[in-house]
């Protein structure tokens, strides 16, 4: 899934959360909490119970005042890797799911390399366990490889789960085609729970430039609903207008909630392209 060149590109990258999230364990991310770390934060008067090892002996010697050095505490970032495994992701040549999986692998490796807590999530499947550190990269890859784009549920189900509040706020990396009429609302709901969204919308060229004509019965990949249409040039034009409007709505919803939105075509999805776009958006550094 990832070539050595891809890994080389990913080695120096880190996820750049805009906000500071409260972590559970000591990580490599500075948190608002002051804690035990090597980075000096501030002085305060000694109170009973403070660790004497934090006592600044120089200040005591010179000023005869007991002062404690405080240090920046470093927490881990919760990164939720949401992979859209709905049936619609199996559309296009190459399939959007392959591109999404590759992007998930790239972002997951970045998170693991940054000692962030990575929780891979997919529709319909059991949630994976929280992964941390480069040593879990292989487990992440195995998890990704075992996923299939065949779920009949909408991706919104996974988003609602994230929005339910059961998980601590973190960075939600959504790899999806976002082709649901309620996608924008779902993303807003996720952001409202304190998560920082990074939405990578992957669409196939067939969806962007459909080459169809004549009298057809369109069958929805996920719901199985069908609609009879006559694919005239006017109908295709209208579809494209609707698609663009929908994508713009999703982008606005993500941006206004402080997240990052990137749209990529599945046939042009490379790690390099992904990193470049996310760096441009400021989602990784």
């Amino acid at each position: 899934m990832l070539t050595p060149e891809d890994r080389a590109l990913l080695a120096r990258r880190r996820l750049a959360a805009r906000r500071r999230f409260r972590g559970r364990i000591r990580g490599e991310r500075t948190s608002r909490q002051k804690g035990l770390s090597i980075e000096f934060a501030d002085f305060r008067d000694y109170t009973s119970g403070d660790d004497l090892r934090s006592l600044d002996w120089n200040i005591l010697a010179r000023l005869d005042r007991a002062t404690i050095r405080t240090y920046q505490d470093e927490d881990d970032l919760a990164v939720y890797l949401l992979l859209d495994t709905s049936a619609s992701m199996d559309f296009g040549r190459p399939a959007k799911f392959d591109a999404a999986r590759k992007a998930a692998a790239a972002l997951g490796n970045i998170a693991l390399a940054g000692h962030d807590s990575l929780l891979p999530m997919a529709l319909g499947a059991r949630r994976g366990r929280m992964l941390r550190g480069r040593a879990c990269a292989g487990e992440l890859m195995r998890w990704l490889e075992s996923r299939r784009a065949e779920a009949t549920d909408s991706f919104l189900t996974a988003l609602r789960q994230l929005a339910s509040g059961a998980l601590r706020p973190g960075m939600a990396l959504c790899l999806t085609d976002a082709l649901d009429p309620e996608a924008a609302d779902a993303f807003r709901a996720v952001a409202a729970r304190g998560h920082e969204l990074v939405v990578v919308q992957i669409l196939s060229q067939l969806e962007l430039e459909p080459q169809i004509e004549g009298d057809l019965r369109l069958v929805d990949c996920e719901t199985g609903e069908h609609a009879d249409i006559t694919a005239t040039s006017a109908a295709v034009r209208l579809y494209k207008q609707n698609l663009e409007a929908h994508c713009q709505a999703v982008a606005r919803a993500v941006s206004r909630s402080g997240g990052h939105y990137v749209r990529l075509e599945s046939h042009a999805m490379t790690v390099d392209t992904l990193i470049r776009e996310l760096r441009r958006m400021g989602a990784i550094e």
Partner: protein
Amino acid sequence: MISFLSAASFWWLAPAFAAIILLYLMKMRRQEMQAPALFLWPRITSDVRANAPMQRLRISLLLILQLIAAALIVLALTGPIRAVRGLLGSTTVVVLDNSASMGASDIRPSRFDAAVGRIVSMIQSLSGSDRLAVIEAGSATRVVFPLSSDKSLMLRAIRSVTRSDATPDVGDALRLAAALAAGHSRSTVIVLSDGDFPAVADFSIGKAKLIYEPIGKSSQNVAITTFDSALSPSGQDQCFLALHNYGPASANATLSLKIDGALFDARDISVPPGQTVTRSYVVPPNASTAEAAVTAPGDILAADNRAVLYLQASQGVRTLLVTQGDLFLERALSLNPVVRLERAAQLPDVERAGSPGKGAYDLVVFDNVPPVPVKAPAVWSLGIPGSQYGVVDAGMVARPAVLDWAHDDPILRYVDLRGTAIDRAHRVLTPPGSPARVLATGAAGPMIVTQSAFGRRSLYTSWSVLDSDFPLRVAFPVFVANAVDWLTRETQRAKHGEVRLMASPGKPFAISTHGQVSELIAPDGTKSMLTAPAGLAVVRGADRVGEYRVAGGGQDVRIAVNLLDQDASDVHPRPSINLAGSTVAARPGREFTLVELWRSVVIAALCVLAAEWLVYVRRS
């Protein structure tokens, strides 16, 4: 009214309509396609194809257009045709009889106008591929318009044709019509006439169809068939007149006679059917003009109800041609309307000078006959000379050539004698001191000599007409007219102060004029120019009865044109005409042409199919 060659083909409408509607009843089987985001697709459907049963019939523009196209195609299969009045074929030549009898008013306003109206309706019913030509058989055969399909041109031309009272040569017109129609398929020659013309010989219609459409229905006509005068044995002028009733019933006619414009006699005459009644009148001395008129109830031809007679001029120049036979000279003399020509092999004794009684002739022509003294005041001798006429015979000369002549003499004006080939001529001498005047000389001496003395005039030509090519030259009729005019002009002038002639309608005649341009004034006052480049004006346009005048060139000529034609006055419509021994029966009534309409219907069907295709493409 439209009819159909194959009306049974209408049954095809049912299966055609059923097939089209069945296709629209069938449901379309659509191709299934997976779509990741169904909600983004607009619900636009239009069923333009069907391939599976069944669904509710929906009326659409495409269905209607297809049904219309199918209906038009079936209509074309039925072979619709329409009967159109008018022409029978693609090429039609009409011979229009413009003779005196066509002026009969049994068909209002006249038979001729009815024939013209028939031609106008033919023109108006022409279809795009039809062509029509009209030939007028009038005073001269004339192509009114050649084969054409230009309706406006044809209408203009036919409306310019005027009626005449002439006796036409219908055979000439028919031959021309046959020539025009030859070489064209489906050609027809139509003769519009009352059939009142002589049998036509030497005529072949070829492959064209010949139709005789009779015009006219009545024969009721009382006509003046003869109106002439003569000197009675006692020397008085007498008019005699003949009336003929061509109708089926006895006619009570009123006959009036005017002398010099004043009513001389009027009486009622009953003329039995098919009979002639004659009357004679002793006119007062010195009367110059007699005018006869007849009126009868129901008379349909006016042209023969009036006649004008110039009493003394009616004698014209009574000319006696003494000859053993000379067609050229006889014809040249008769061409002159002034000349009342009679022919004799030898001079009657009563005309010899010294015999008792007055001479009956104004001019005696000795054509290669020994001339003798005559009572006539004018003598013309050709060939054999007579000493009493100013010349003395001195033998014969072979192949004389005219070397010089008096170009300005009235007899030789516009006469070119140069190159005239004369086989032999008499060599003559003019005695010294004689009043003879030499007008033309050759190597052997005088060839044309005139003499005018004591009120008598003579002309001598040293060669016989038949011994030369002179009759074949343009100068010959000019010379003859000049000679007659010079020989008799003083006699005429002494009588009237003007020249008066009698003529028949449509027959051309020549008159001598002093000027090169004269004016011909018709009885209705219309004027036309006459040119006389050689001093001889040929009048061709006197084709209506009445009095004409020729003015100009210092002279005044009055010409009375009378019908006086028994055949022309017999106006009963002939049931058939005889052409080259074949009888062509009359075919009254209108002819119809069947015009096929399937082409128009097919074009309409193609237009509807094109519209249907456009609608389908736009929807697709």
